[in-house]
Each structure stands twice: as C-alpha cells, then as structure tokens.
C-alpha cells in the first residue's frame, strides 16, 4: 500500500481551474518529483498535501486514511519553502529547534537533534548566527535542517535550489540527492528544472495545465515522452507533421521524405495525420543515399558541447533541426543525415 | 560713512510718504469671545481710512500672557478683554499706555477701576446663577433668594458650579461667595454646599449644556452658574421664540459677581493716534450699542441703549458682589487652591 496517496485533487484560483484530477502516490523510500513549468500549480499541490490549503475536490490519504480534515500542524509533513521562510527573529539553532520544541522534546534532546541536523547539512558551525546574516546557500541548508530535524513522515521540497546560482545548485543538488537517499523517508520534490528532476527523482510526474501528463522513471519519461508537448518540454524540438503511409512497420510520409519509426505512441492507421519527433541523438552523417529516413540540409552552426557537437541543420522552408553529432561540420556545408528509426517518436496529431 | 546711507533712506522715506493712499492698519488683540458687527466696524474703518485687524488670542488668561510676553515690542496696538480679575496684574506688568479718553465722561465712575486710565472700561456683565423657571413651580419648591438658601437640604444636588481654576464664571462665583462670607468664612460655606451635593464640573460648556435642565442639553440640575444675560440669549436664540422665559437669574445680595472688561493701548505701539481713536470709538454710543447682541454683556457707556430682550429678560442684581482688583490679584491663587483642596478630595 502506498504511504501517501493523492486522489483526484481539483482546485481553482480566482475562478480559473488550476488543478484538475491530480492523482498519484508515493511509496516509502521513494523520491517523487513534480516537474512542470513555473506557476503551474505544483506548489499548490504541496500546500494541499501539507494541509495549508484545501482542495475543492479530491482526497489526500496517508497510510490508507483520508486526512483532508486533519489540520496542518498535526500531519508531521515537513515542507521546505521556496524562499526558505526562515524565522528572522530567531538564530539558526532556534530555527532548527522549532519543530522539536513544538513536539515538546526535552531540552537536552533538542540540543542533540539540532546538532545532528546541522551536521547533516554541513552547517554545524553556524548554530549561533542570525539567519539574516546568512547567504542564499546557507539559508537553504538551514531550511532543510529545520524541515528534517523533527523527523517528518514525509518531506516536501518546493524548488529548493531555485534561488541559487549554477555552481551552488549543482553542488547542493548533489548533497540533497545524497541526503534523500540516506534518509529513507518518502519525499516529494517540486521543480521546473529537468536536470534537477532527472538527477534526484526515483519517479517523475510531469504537470501540464493542471494535469499530470506523464509519470515514470527519469529514463522512461525522457526516452518516451508521452506527447509532443512533453517532447518539446524535454527539449526535443525536432518536430514535423506527417501522414501514415503504412501501418506495420510504421512508415510516415513527410515534407522531408519518408521515415520509418520504431516508437509509435499509440495505434495508427493508414492516412492518419501524425507528428514525428526526431531525437537529437539519433542522427548520423550518411554517405549513402537512401530511400527512407534521410534528412538533407545545410549546416547552420556546429557548437561543441560536452564531447559532442550540437549541430543545427537548416532544412527546406527554413526549418531548423538540432542534432548531436560526433564530429564538427563546417557551417554552410550540405549534409545528409540518416535518422535511426529507434530515435523517431510518432504521436497522433490531435491538435 | 553715514552720508552713504542718507540718500537711500531719504528716497525710501519719500516713497513711503507718497504711498500713503494705502489704508493704515491697526491691530487689536481680543479674546476669542469677541464679536462685533461688520457695519459698525466699517463705519470706523471708512471714517479713518484704516483697516482694523483683530487678533483672536484665546481666552483672557491666554491673551494676557501673550501681551506680557511681548511687552515693550507689542504685536498689537490695542488690547481689549482684560477683566477686573486680571486688571491688577495687567497694570502691574505695565503693558498699557495711559489714555484719558474724552468719552470717559459717559461712563459711570463705578466702572473706572483704573484711575490712572491705562485700562478703560468697555462693558460689564454679571455672573449669576441661572435657574430653570419650569422646574421650581413643578416641584413646588420656592426659588432660592440668598446664597444661604443654596445650602438648604431642599436644594440638595440641584446646583452645578464650575471649577474656579479652569473656568472664568467659576472663579467669579467663588469670588462672590468670598465677598459675602469673607476670606475666613467662605470655606465653611463651601463645605455646606459640598454636603448639599453641589455638582462641580470643569467648564461652563459642560455645566450649561450637559448639566443644566433649562438649556437644550436638558440636564439634571435646574441651577447653574452662568451669565446674567444667558436668559436673554435663550429667548433670542430660540426658534420659535417662546413667550415665557425658560430661564432666569438669581440676583440676591452677593449672589452675582460683576465682571467688567477693559480696553487699553499697548505700550510701545507705533500707532498711538489711531489707537486713541479706536478706543474712543469703542467707548462711543454706536459701538456700545452693538455690544449686547454680539457679546451678551452690557455697555459701560450709560448713553447706550440696550435691546428690548435685555430689558425684558435680564435680571440685573442690585447688589452684585465685588472685590477690589488688588485683593483679587493678591489672593487669587491661594483662594483657588484652598477651594480645590476643600472641594475636590
């Protein structure tokens, strides 16, 4: 049985629908990531789970029991806020100790736990500092320690790395990942950054226009996005329209030629309109002329990126596709690219 | 060196002299209760080509303070509104310039408390106990005739007076009792009043409009220390005019205290001649006849006529209480503090 279950949560904001029918579950030991564009309602889901807001419809279940009516302060769910929300009138120690005080833990135990929590986040030396004196990264860590100290049954993190710069983000992201693995409590992590989501989550839930549009492991989600929108979200911009020529093996006619696709997302029949997505990794310079799966175009630019070359190829009608190639190709040169069928996704065109 | 300045000065002087079609200005310091009609003032201003500026300076005490503080370099030319309780102090501070106005002939001697003519009497009024004319017949009570009566048990709790420390009529009434019972006996009298549940409030406003049953406030006390002219005001300022007077004054011996108000030219004024003209004007019949309906006091000038309502509805005491201004000045503080100690414990 899942530890936390969300069923059909619906909520509107100022008469516009914000969340519709959100359902998912979180197992013990699992880190689930809510991924989606900013402002999509992800934080609201966390707040509903935490009990800070109520949904118009739907249930929140913990260990099988509906807890909709349970007030926030009784839920024992830790929440780490986007802008940390540290208590400015208390120092670091007092901030971290707050949850423990609310549990009426004896003073000496509190001292112990606080030290433990601070050490966990490498902030042991900062115990007596005022929180207003801390840098962004330091505040974030204190916020984490504060959320962890009372040993919550569930930990929720709302864009914890959002306010930090690139290097700090990577460093702290790694620390977070390590911590979460160690903690063995279920965690829900909210972010708009895919990299973050991929590196931290056991499972990803993608949120789009108030609905969950795909769930799966990072690998699953990334290799098989469930819709053209998702594909775009993951940066797969190489998309074109086509018409199904043959059902098995799936062959699609497009303006740029015929393509055999190995990854149909759904059943298609002949004549149906579809959208093809070419993954960036599936192209190879082709010496031979082929009948199928060939793209012809002119190189617009070729930029080195982490041991591959990001190559932008201009096709007819000024459409540009981007592929990752092994070698650099000079700008202006015409090339033929063979696109492997395994790297082509095919979606129904419901647009 | 001096010659350098003479020429410009002369030029300025010529300029100033030739610029005189502008009306001169006369400043008169008055207390906040001062009022007069526009046409009466217009008469003076037109006749003398002068613009009269009135400086409303607070109550009498405030005004006197201001005059004393600016002694020698006065902010006005004339000051009106010093009354007989403050007269001694004003004279000893030497703020006035003596002026023997010819109009003094029309003013009875009894008002000329300053024989040196630094302060000239303008008007007088009595502080008297007003009573609700309906109340007493309704309750079958005789109207008190003397101060002594007020201490009688049948009038228990029916009188409201003001604190002499904070109210001018309050002080006046206290002085009346001192005039009657002397400096040794007044405290015993007040003790009696206290035992007779006399109500004390701080200001005339509260006493008259909150406590007094004869005013619009419809309060609980049918007797209040107010002004002798208040009954007339109740008639004049009522709409529609009642045919029967709702209030009247108790005018037994020493039950009322006479207040006289004075005007004086401030020493150091640069407009002596104009100021003298104004003082004359204030003592003249025309001005004096305008006083009653504006300030609700009587004109000092005996040739001035008083309005019919005054004659009909104001009871003038035959034996108003009076104390010498020097005596008042010397003992004021002591009397008031003694009263406070007695009455406010």
């Amino acid at each position, binding site marked *: 049985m899942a530890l936390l279950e969300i069923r059909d949560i619906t909520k509107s904001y100022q008469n516009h629908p914000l969340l519709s029918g959100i359902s998912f579950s979180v197992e013990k030991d699992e880190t689930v990531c809510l991924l989606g564009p900013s402002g999509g309602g992800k934080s609201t889901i966390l707040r509903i789970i935490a009990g*800070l807001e109520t949904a118009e419809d739907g249930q929140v279940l913990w260990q099988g029991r509906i807890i909709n009516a349970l007030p926030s302060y009784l839920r024992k769910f830790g929440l780490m806020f986007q802008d940390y929300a540290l208590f400015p009138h208390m120092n670091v120690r007092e901030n971290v100790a707050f949850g423990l005080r609310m549990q009426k833990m004896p003073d000496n135990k509190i001292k112990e736990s606080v030290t433990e929590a601070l050490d966990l986040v490498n902030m042991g030396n900062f115990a007596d500092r005022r929180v207003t004196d801390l840098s962004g990264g330091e505040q974030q860590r204190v916020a984490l320690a504060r959320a962890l100290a009372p040993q919550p049954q569930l930990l929720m993190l709302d864009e914890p790395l959002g306010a930090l710069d690139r290097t700090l983000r990577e460093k702290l992201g790694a620390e977070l990942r390590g911590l979460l693995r160690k903690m063995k409590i279920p965690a829900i992590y909210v972010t708009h950054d895919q990299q973050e989501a991929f590196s931290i989550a056991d499972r990803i839930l993608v949120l789009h226009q108030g609905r969950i549009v795909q769930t799966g492991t990072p690998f699953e989600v990334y290799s098989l996005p469930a819709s053209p929108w998702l594909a775009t979200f993951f940066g797969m911009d190489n998309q074109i329209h086509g018409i199904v020529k043959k059902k098995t093996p799936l062959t699609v006619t497009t303006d740029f030629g015929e393509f055999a696709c190995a990854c149909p997302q759904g059943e298609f029949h002949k004549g149906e309109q579809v959208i093809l997505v070419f993954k960036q990794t599936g192209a190879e310079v082709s010496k031979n002329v082929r009948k199928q799966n060939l793209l012809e175009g002119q190189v617009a630019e070729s930029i080195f990126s982490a041991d591959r070359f990001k190559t932008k190829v201009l096709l007819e009608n000024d459409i540009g596709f981007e592929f990752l190639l092994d070698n650099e190709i000079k700008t202006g040169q015409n090339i033929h690219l063979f696109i492997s069928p395994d790297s082509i996704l095919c979606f129904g065109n419901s647009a | 060196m001096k010659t350098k300045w003479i020429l410009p000065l002369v030029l300025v002087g010529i300029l100033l002299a030739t610029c005189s079609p502008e009306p001169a200005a006369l400043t008169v310091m008055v207390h906040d209760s001062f009022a007069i009609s526009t046409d009466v003032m217009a008469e003076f201003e037109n006749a003398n080509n002068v613009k009269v500026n009135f400086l409303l300076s*607070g109550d009498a005490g405030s005004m006197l303070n201001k005059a004393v503080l600016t002694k020698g370099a006065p902010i006005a030319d004339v000051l009106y509104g010093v009354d007989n309780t403050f007269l001694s102090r004003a004279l000893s501070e030497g703020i006035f310039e003596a002026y023997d106005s010819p109009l003094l002939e029309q003013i009875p001697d009894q008002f000329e408390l300053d024989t040196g003519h630094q302060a000239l009497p303008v008007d007088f009024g009595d502080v008297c106990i007003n009573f609700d004319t309906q109340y007493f017949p309704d309750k079958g009570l005789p109207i008190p005739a003397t101060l002594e009566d007020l201490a009688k048990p049948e009038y228990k709790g029916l009188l409201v007076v003001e604190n002499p420390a904070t109210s001018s009529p309050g002080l006046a009434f206290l002085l009346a009792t001192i005039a009657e019972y002397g400096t040794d006996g007044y405290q015993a009298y007040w003790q009696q009043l206290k035992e007779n549940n006399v109500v004390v409030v701080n200001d005339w406003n509260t006493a008259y409009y909150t406590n007094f049953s004869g005013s619009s406030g419809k309060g609980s006390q049918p007797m209040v220390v107010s002004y002798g002219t208040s009954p007339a005001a109740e008639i004049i300022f009522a709409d529609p005019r009642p045919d029967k007077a709702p209030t009247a004054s108790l005018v037994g011996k020493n039950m009322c205290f006479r207040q006289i108000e004075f005007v004086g030219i401030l020493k150091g004024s640069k407009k002596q001649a104009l100021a003298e003209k104004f003082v004359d004007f204030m003592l003249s019949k025309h001005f004096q006849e305008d006083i009653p309906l504006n300030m609700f006091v009587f004109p000092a000038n005996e040739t001035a006529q008083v309005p019919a309502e005054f004659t009909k509805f104001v009871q003038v005491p035959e034996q108003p209480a009076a104390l010498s201004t020097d005596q008042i000045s010397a003992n004021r503080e002591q009397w008031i503090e003694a009263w406070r100690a007695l009455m406010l414990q």
Partner: protein
Amino acid sequence: MGVFYFFPLGKLVSLSFPHPGSALNKSTNWKIIGGAAGFTFLQAGLSTVLTVILGLPAAYLFGRFNFTGKNALRIASTLPFILPTVVVAAGFNALIGLKGWLNLALMGILGASEPLINIQNSLAAILLAHVFYNTSIVIRVVSSALAQFDRKLEDAAQTLGASPWKTFAKITLPLLMPSILSAVLLVFLFDFTSFGVILMMGGPRFTTLEVEIYIQTMQFLNLPLAGILSLIQLGITMLVTFLLMRMGDGGIGVPVMPRLQQESLRNPVRGWEKVFTSIMVILLLSLLISPIVSLVFRSFSVAAPAIGEGLVEKMHLSLNYYRELFINRQQSLFYVPPIGAVLNSLRFAGTSALISLSLGLMLAYGLVSGKNLRWINLLMMLPLGTSAVTLGLGFFTAFSGGVGLQKWVGLLIPLAHALISLPFILRVVQPALRSIPVNLKLAAQSLGAKPLDVWRFVELPIIWRALMTAAVYAFTISLGEFGATSFLSRPDTPTMPVAIFRYLNLPGSSNYGQAMAMAVIILFVCVVSMAFLDRLQFNLPSGTK
C-alpha cells in the same frame, strides 16, 4: 525641527530660569502637582492598556480579513480621532449621559426611575473617551504591519507542528512587536498629554500635568512654574519613549514581502474566523461608532427625546439649524461661514499631509542605514509629549515678529501638525523602504532605467501604501487640530473646530443646534476625505505599473 520645536520650547523654558525662586511660592501646592503627575501616568497607562486590548484584535481583523463594509468600518473607527473633544463629550453624553439613549433604553426596559449608568466626571469616562479616540492608531499601525506580513512564515511554523495559537504566539506576535510597541508609545503619549478629555470627561476631581500647566498659565499667569511642569512632563515623555524603544529594539520588525496586492487578506472561512469577525465588528460598532451616531441623532433632535415625541417635527426643526449655519444673523464680523471653515480645514490638512510626507520621506531615506536611528526616533517623539499650552505659547513667543506673524500662520499651522505626525510617518515609511530588496533596484538599473525611473517604477509602488497610510495619518491629525495650534490665532482662516466653539460658547438652543449641525458637517467632511484617501491608498495611481 530645530527651528520649529526646540527654539520655541527653549524660549519659553528660559522664562522659568531667570527667576526660579519666583516659580514657587507658598501657595504652590506640590501635593496637587505630585498627585497630578502620578495620576497623569496612571490614566495614561490604563487608557493605553485598554486601547490595546480593543485595538489589537481589531487590527487583526483589519490586517487579516476582508469583509463587507470593511472600508466603511475602518473609516468610521478613525473618525473619533478627528473630532474635537467638545463634540466627543457631547456624543458620549448623548449616548451614556444621564439622559442619554442607553440610560433611556435601560430605564424603559427595566422600568427603573433613576438613570442606571452614571459615569459623568469619572475615571471610567476618561478611559472610555481615550479608548474611543485612540483605538484607530493601534488599528492603523498594527494592521498595516500585519497586512504586509509574510504569511509563509506562519505556514512554515504550522508544518513544523505549531498549532495556530502557538504560531501566533511564537512567530507572528514577536515579529509584530515593534509595530505594536510603536502604537503603544503613540497612544500613551497622546493620553499622557491629553487635555480636553480630562477636563470635560473627567471633571474637576481629576487633574493631570497638562491641566495643571493650563491652570498655572491661564489662571495664575505663572509661566515659570508652567515651564517647570512642562519640563517634568517632557522628562517623563522621554523616559517612557526611551524605555519602549529599548524594548522594541533588537526586534527585527515585520518581514515584509514587497507586495502590490493585499495577497494575504481573505474572507473569513473557518468557523472561529467568522465568529471572531462578527464579534469584533459588533464591538467596534458599539464602542466607536455609537457615540457618533448618537451625536448625529441628537443633532437632529437637540433635546433628550421622549420616545415617540414628534421625531419628525424635531427633524424639521433641526434642519433649520443647518440652514442657520449659513446665515450671519448678527452680521457679526467674526461669523464663520461653514463652507469657508470646511475649506480652510481641508486646506490645512492637505498641506500638512504634503509637508509631513516630504519630510518623512527625506528623513526615512536619510535614516535607512543610520546608526543615529535611535536618537533621531527619540527626538521625533518629543513634540507629541510636550504640553500643548507650552508649545503654543512658545511658538507665539518665538515667532511674534510683529504683524508679520499673520502671513506665516498659514504655513505655521500645517507645519506644527506635520511635526506631530512625523514619528508616525517615520515608523510606517521606514520599514517599507527597508523592505525593498536591493536586487530589485540593481536589476532595474541594469536594464537601463535611470535613477528617477527606478524610483518611480520600482520603489514608489512598493512604498506607496506606506506613504499613503502616513499621509492619511497626517491628514487626520491636522483635521483634528491637535496640540499647539489651538493657540495660533487665525481670524481670517477659521477652521471647523473654531466654528463649533463659536456657537457652543453662547447659550441658546439655536446656538447649540448650529454647533451640533456643524459637528455633523465635520463628520461628513471627514468621512468623505478619508474615503477618498483610502481609495488612493489601495489603488496605485495609474501610470505606475
């Protein structure tokens, strides 16, 4: 400030010292004076406590919830502040006087023959009047802080296991403390130097330092002693200010998120919220509004009504009073035209608001990072805690440069008002300024905005609400004509309170009626101007998006 405060004060005080001996003579009753000092402190303290007891929940009401009639209620609760004491006394009398509505109602219900509530001339009356007057200060100061409070802190506390009460006690309240203490200080100072209320509501049995100063000055012309008393009063003021500021220091103050909307306000949702809202509204209505309403009704009937007695005919009678106001029956030179008085009052108030806004802004900018903060704050509070009588005479002495004084009066009055408003302005504007994240300004500049634009488009919207709150405060102080300005004579520019006094100082039902009518006009003018200002406060002027 040096010019307009210390110089007049110094001048007047200097009068004491040449002859310190003459200040004291055997009649000077030090017992009375000592008692006065003690009582002043006592009544001010009690009043402040009571005001806070009513004001804090009310501030919570306004700072947290939206409800129908909120704006109207807020305006109505500020009205008492503006009314002259004479009017307030009349209003209270109309409500709880011996022949007031409450007594009449009670007598009717319980069949009693004697009025049951008699608090004329009592400590209770003083306390009641003070609460009536000053609750709005607490409401405005604290609710504005509350409204800007970052609610995420409370959310965080809840997720950490703090119940709503614990959250309030450990998080909200400590962070709110500085503004609460500010309000407490302001209220205390007003109560401490209160004059009209003590005089009229308390009666002769009670005397305070201010009353004694008045008596020494106006009755005994004993300026040296008055000066000494003023110094004593000032000394206590400084002490209290210092102590309270000490308590508030080290307090971080409300962590504000620069908000343009009132995001943290919502309608009461949960059960207890609804109950709370209703109770507070009723309480505020009965305590703060009913005296005013009674007054308005009394102005229409001008006599303790026997129930059922021709109310209509009485209404007709009193509409006459409104008409009478506009007629100068005696052709008096000193007749105060109502419209003129209204305009004068508004003019002074507007000028005062502008002056204090600019002064406040300048000071706030200058002080945002100042170490001298504490001392300057202390200095700012002084005018509030100084005797109005002393200050008035001081002003007079310092500035009586002959007839030239007349011209300056137009400026002196708003200036004096602005001086009194200054502490409040600072208190409200400063935190707002501090709350602007430095990054915002830098970001704007890096996008190419000129400094003036940065100010207009970044800073101004954020501090706009604070500025307007401050302006409203200055405006209301000016309308209410506090402090020394009653001693600045201005026959050419009479204001609304002056108009009332003129009528109330004469007997006669027509005079009384006109005074009441004028009071109602004052109320009306106040309501309209405050509604207008409140509108401005919560809507940015267009163009500053």
